[in-house]
């Protein structure tokens, strides 16, 4: 909110600090001043009033009081000495009826007759302009002026345009309409509080005035409204109508009901002075439940303990005095303080401690390390496994990406998600954020597509949260490699799992249902379930051409997608050293021709079964099909590593086992050992 420096000065006899200096004081002790700029002979201070101080500081008076508290200068309130006309009685002109005292805790109205509506004097016009308001006529300008001065929104009605000489504060009826001062039409409903005359709404309470009882050049009698409306009611109305005004903004944050009287008197005084009116006797004041000042007790030990600094009691008392916080009881251990009703933000001892802290100066609090019990921090095992996983993938050449937590309808369709499984946003900013991501895959594939023109080979991964109904939030680990890289990806998964202390890994071919096949993102013949101890923990495979084509991607992409919640539960730091055999190992090779569809697993199982304990390792070093190999066959070549733990194996012994293996393999129909 912007403030006029000259206006602020008008509350003090002594000179204020220079605008820049004043801004610094305010920033350090009250509110940040984001800008100071010259405006003619005045200066404009743009002050970011903290929301909890809106009640008293969305006003020049409020800021002036803050300045007084900070600088110690004496604050003088403005004059509002009205001389009422004894022959006129306000209640003869208008009757006020408040239907809902929760929505409208106070309604104060006054009447001024014989006004001469015309332009405002220059000083009012200038102050309004400095604060960003457009001058209209003296009556309207004074209402605005008093709002900027006191924080209390005021409204002026032309009395003769109010039907039935009545003001009724009530909720609107459905299908009621109103045209506001700026000629905008609004449809009202039962949630919107209005000011009505005997027949129709004439203003949206606390938000904006209606066109009908507008003050114009012919207006003679005005009804001034200075009311207090419930913050939630105004907020709801303002949101419903999508209409924010200087008034609604103030009411939304809450105002002191005791402010209405002071503000209306100030306005009446100015109208009398400037528009030459007669002020009718007696305010009409609906105020069923008077708000009284709160009393808050401040424990002085607590003050010291919370701020971590000892402030002399004399100093504390002085700060309270400057803030107009009256001490009604002073004991060595505590102070009992009466809080002015305008300070809606103060109700707890902590609130008083804040007042003392900021005015005394937070910069005077010296840094001091806590004296606390030594409690070693707890280890976060989930973060530990996450970091470990990231390190392994990084070392293997993968780059980590962070993607948005969302995807759109297009991705949902393409990846076969059903709406009923996805968590949908109520208020997305764009179609791309319609759902929470149920998988990391869609956004990773987009990364591939975007990067492919700069990088011929890409290896990326993400470890992030995915969400699906019913409110399942899970960490997933997904890695992507471009190219014909199924075995690379599989090797990566093996390596990762081994490093995480997991050994019992199994890859199962996937048998989708026909429905699944339709939406599957996987190449049906190049994918596998990743299983650990028989439980599925993820999936590995090439992305189907159907998906890649829709993403405009030329080429192949292989991907692994792992449930990280499961993974981090079974990962283990346990690792045991295996003694190195003192006896040499011997290597023998076997090359075998088998039908194409025979899986390596089957051959390995056979070799292991026959070979027994003395075969320490079997290493498949070549798979070949093509030229020089009969059609429908493939050649598998293995290194068999023989080793015993207790002796050196003789050639004879090795040859015996090797021959047994060869015999067993050759027994299979269509298998042929190549010699």
């Amino acid at each position, binding site marked *: 909110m912007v403030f006029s420096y000259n206006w602020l000065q008008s509350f003090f006899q002594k000179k204020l600090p220079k605008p820049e200096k004043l801004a610094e004081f305010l920033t350090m002790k009250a509110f940040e001043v984001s800008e100071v700029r010259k405006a003619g002979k005045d200066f404009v201070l743009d002050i970011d009033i903290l929301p909890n101080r809106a009640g008293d500081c969305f006003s020049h008076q409020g800021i002036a009081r803050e300045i007084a508290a900070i600088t110690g200068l004496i604050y003088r309130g403005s004059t509002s000495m009205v001389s009422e006309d004894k022959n006129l009685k306000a209640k003869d002109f208008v009757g006020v009826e408040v239907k809902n005292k929760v929505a409208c805790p106070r309604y104060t109205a006054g009447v001024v007759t014989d006004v001469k509506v015309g332009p405002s004097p220059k000083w009012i016009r200038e102050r309004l302009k400095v604060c960003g308001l457009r001058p209209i006529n003296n009556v309207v300008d004074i209402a605005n002026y008093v709002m900027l001065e006191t924080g209390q929104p005021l409204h002026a009605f032309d009395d003769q345009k109010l039907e039935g000489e009545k003001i009724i504060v009530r909720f609107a009826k459905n299908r009621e309409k109103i045209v506001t001062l700026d000629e905008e039409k609004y449809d009202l409903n039962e949630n919107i509080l209005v000011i009505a005359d005997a027949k129709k709404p004439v203003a949206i309470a606390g938000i904006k005035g209606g066109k009908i009882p507008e003050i114009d050049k012919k207006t003679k009698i005005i009804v001034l409204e200075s009311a207090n409306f419930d*913050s939630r009611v105004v907020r709801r109305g303002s949101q419903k109508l999508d209409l924010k005004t200087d008034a609604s903004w103030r009411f939304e944050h809450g105002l002191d009901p005791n402010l209405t009287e002071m503000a209306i008197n100030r306005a009446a005084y100015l109208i009398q002075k400037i528009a030459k009116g007669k002020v009718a006797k007696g305010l009409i004041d609906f105020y069923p439940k008077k708000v009284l000042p709160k009393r808050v007790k401040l424990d002085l030990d607590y003050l010291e303990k919370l701020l971590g600094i000892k402030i002399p009691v004399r100093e504390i008392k002085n700060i309270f005095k400057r803030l107009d916080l009256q001490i009604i009881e002073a004991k060595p251990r505590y102070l009992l303080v009466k809080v002015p009703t305008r300070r809606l933000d103060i109700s707890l001892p902590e609130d008083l401690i804040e007042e003392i802290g900021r005015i005394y100066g*937070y910069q005077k609090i010296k840094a001091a390390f806590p004296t606390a019990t030594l409690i070693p921090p707890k280890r976060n095992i989930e973060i530990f496994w996450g970091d470990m996983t990231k390190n392994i993938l990084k070392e293997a050449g993968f780059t980590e990406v962070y993607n948005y937590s969302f995807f759109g309808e297009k991705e949902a369709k393409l990846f076969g998600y059903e709406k009923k499984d996805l968590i949908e946003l109520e208020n997305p900013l764009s179609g791309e954020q319609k759902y929470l991501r149920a998988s990391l895959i869609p956004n990773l594939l987009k990364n591939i597509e975007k990067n492919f023109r700069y990088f011929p080979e890409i290896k990326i991964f993400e470890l992030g949260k995915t969400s699906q109904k019913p409110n399942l939030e899970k960490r997933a680990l997904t890695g992507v490699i471009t190219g014909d890289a199924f075995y690379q990806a599989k090797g990566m998964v093996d390596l990762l799992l081994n490093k995480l202390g997991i050994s019992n890994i199994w890859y199962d071919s996937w048998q989708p249902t026909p429905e699944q096949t339709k939406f599957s993102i996987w190449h049906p013949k190049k994918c596998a379930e990743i299983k650990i101890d028989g439980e599925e923990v993820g999936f590995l495979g090439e992305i189907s051409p159907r998906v890649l084509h829709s993403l405009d991607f030329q080429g192949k992409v292989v991907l692994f997608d792992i449930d990280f919640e499961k993974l981090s539960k079974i990962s283990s730091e346990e690792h045991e050293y295996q003694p190195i055999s003192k006896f040499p190992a011997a290597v023998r090779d076997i090359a075998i021709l088998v039908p194409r569809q025979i899986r390596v697993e089957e051959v390995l199982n056979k070799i292991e079964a026959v070979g027994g304990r003395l075969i320490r390792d079997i290493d498949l070093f070549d798979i070949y099909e093509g030229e020089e190999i009969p059609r429908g066959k493939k050649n598998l070549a293995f290194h068999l590593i023989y080793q015993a733990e207790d002796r050196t194996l003789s050639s004879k012994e090795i040859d015996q086992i090797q021959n047994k293996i060869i015999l067993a393999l050759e027994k299979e129909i269509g298998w042929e050992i190549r010699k």
Partner: protein
Amino acid sequence: MKIAKIDLKSLKKQAQKDINLAKDLKELNEIFKKYLGKKGQLTQVLRSLEKLSKAKRVKIGKAANQLKNFLRIKFDQKAEALKEKVRKEIEEKEWIDITAPGKKPALGHLHPLTLVKRKTEEIFQEMGFSVVEGPEVETEWYNFDALNIPPEHPARDLWDTFYLKNGFLLRTHTTPVDVRYMEKNNPPLRIITIDRCFRHEATDASHEINFYQLDGLMVGKNISVANFKATIQEFFQRFFNKVIEIRMRPGYFPFVEPGFEVDMTCLICGGKGCSACQKTGWMEMMGAGMVHPAVFKNSGLNPRDWQGWAFGMGFDRLTMMKYKINDIRLFYSGDLRFLQQF
């Protein structure tokens, strides 16, 4: 006899000359054969000794054997010199251009937010803080009500929120984690959270719809503003490796009272005032304050028993400051030209 004597002398002279002239090991080998081979000249002299009288045999034999040993040494020395020459030549041939670029092993890259997260966690862990996490999909209660932000309160406008159709919302800050943690753990406690949050707002170079927040909480019997100042100052000094001061200004966050805005010495000018800090010498870093009694109450703790501080800061911004990154959107772009710089 006289001849034999002369023979040995000239033999020695000639052999020495031949050895010196040998150009490579092959030539040297030929020369060796010429003198010391089976049919070599010196070998023949030695063989002819048996035909001589005993006295002569002893005398000439001694001289011939001396010559043999002498020549062996010469041959060895020459052979070594020639080998050395060959090695030199090979090395010379194997010259490489050491200014040509090296071949780097293909390591991957961790995301800058991951790197800075680790660094931050390390500093706080060293000061006794545990690192905790919480859900991204939150309830109104934890995100707002429990933090003393009642429904229909204008303070809710401070947090532009993504709501979900299932009645939940995406947390707008990591502060809900504080409440969740206090519900389950009794003070004294020290925690930080670095995790993903969401804001319903237009994106630009400094705003993103998802981002990371660093949130900290310390609760005990006597935890004060002075302790906050020391702890956070220490964090910034260790993080930026510089002498840094912090200052506190009044701030408002419903879940703390008193509340502060926390500034730190400008990293660029060291506090003198420059364009980066709008000439103030300070940079705005975080919001903080002393935990509001209502928050303790909502977390199941008695505010009379406990006090402490909490802070929250944009973690993306901290990372941007660390690496001088000028656009937050780069973090979520997946652009490898950016990511592979880390």
